[in-house]
């Protein structure tokens, strides 16, 4: 379903992505590994369409992602380094908005997702009062709620405690078993139980 072909991307005068190619079909998880600066974030952002590669193409369900951007993006959930939350809104309000602009969502659904990621107890507090790990849990609930088939996760376990890291692994497992695709940049190995695991090491020249 997701096909990345020959991506070349420069950041300033650095040639970061040198012809990255891989493909993932439904029910697969792609783990991106590599040293700091190897281009994991760049690759994720290029797949999401936030960066324009100089060469190469990303296709989704057989169509170039750039041309069918609206459809591709409604099928995609991207979680970067920072949790994309407004500090002055509560976790609950943030999710009502972030998910609401994608699809109709009810209060109960949001609460259920927050409970699943262990964020229910602090989801009514303003996000700026939360710790980085707590924010990440709220943001993960957002990814879960998006209903997207393709998840792009940039170091999803950052700032999370041992429980949280376990949570990320089981969320990925569930997504994969639902027939979704996960592309995640990771530093620490995740304890995934699902099949269909592909590893891609970047910067190994």
């Amino acid at each position, binding site marked *: 379903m997701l096909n990345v072909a020959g991506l070349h991307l420069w950041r300033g005068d650095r040639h970061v992505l040198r012809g990255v190619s891989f493909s993932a079909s439904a029910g697969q998880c792609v783990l991106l590994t590599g040293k700091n600066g190897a281009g994991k974030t760049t690759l994720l952002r290029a797949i*999401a*369409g*936030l*960066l*324009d590669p100089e060469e190469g193409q990303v296709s989704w369900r057989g169509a170039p992602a750039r041309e069918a951007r*609206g*459809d*591709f*993006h*409604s*099928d*995609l959930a*991207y979680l*970067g380094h*920072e*949790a*994309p*939350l*407004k*500090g*002055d*809104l509560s976790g609950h*309000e943030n999710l009502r*908005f*972030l998910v*609401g*602009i*994608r*699809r*109709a969502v009810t209060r109960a659904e949001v609460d259920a997702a927050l409970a699943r990621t262990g964020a229910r107890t602090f989801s009514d507090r303003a996000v700026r009062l939360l710790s980085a790990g707590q924010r990440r849990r709220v943001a993960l609930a957002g990814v879960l709620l998006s209903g997207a088939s393709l998840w792009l996760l940039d170091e999803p376990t950052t700032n999370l405690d041992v429980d949280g890291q376990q949570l990320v692994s089981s969320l990925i497992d569930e997504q994969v078993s639902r027939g979704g695709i996960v592309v995640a940049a990771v530093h620490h190995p995740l304890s995934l139980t699902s099949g269909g695991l592909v590893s891609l090491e970047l910067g190994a020249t």
Partner: protein
Amino acid sequence: MKTGTLEVARLVMARDLRLAFRKPSQLLQPLMFFMIVATLFPLTLTPEMSRLRDAAPGVLWVGALLSSLLALEFLFRDDAQDGTLEQFALSGQSLTWMLFAKTCTHWLLTGLPLALSAPVAAVGLGVPASAMWSVVASLALGGFALSLVGAISAGLTLGARRGGVLLSLLTLPLAVPILVFGADATQRAITGDAIAPPMYLLGAIAVLGVTLAPLAAAAAVRIGLE
């Protein structure tokens, strides 16, 4: 089910209004700036009403323009910093439409309050009571056009580290027609002439802004997010 277009605009506007009311200082700052400029001016000129009345359109409009430049900095910057603007772009909805909703909210929160508070400043400048409605209307319409034009520059300066000065430099040339026609409308209102001609021109600029500025702003924001 994918969220409808109008619902998206409602959500964006509701969110921005809620955020603004949780952090009112950011809102009040441009308004305070405008009020200070407009009330200090009469103190520096001779207290002759006819003199003040001549200077009134210029003072009101330059004050409004500078205050709107001050407010424009906050239009997209906070959302870009915390990553929510990125989520706008990745939501599968039209970024153009969402930025238009954001710009309209920005006007509701900055341009409209400024226009509504202008009579307080205008009284001090010797503007006759009969001209007040026209002053408010011209500042409201001109402010809307300024917000739209400013959205383009705000998008373009997202990537710049110190965007403030650049933002002003980019916006000012585009804002000059608005300033000229707006001040003309105010001048006519004070002298008791028909304000329709400059108001039509301001309206035309606003319509042009509604049709083109959100498209340009969305393109600029996409570049800024890289």
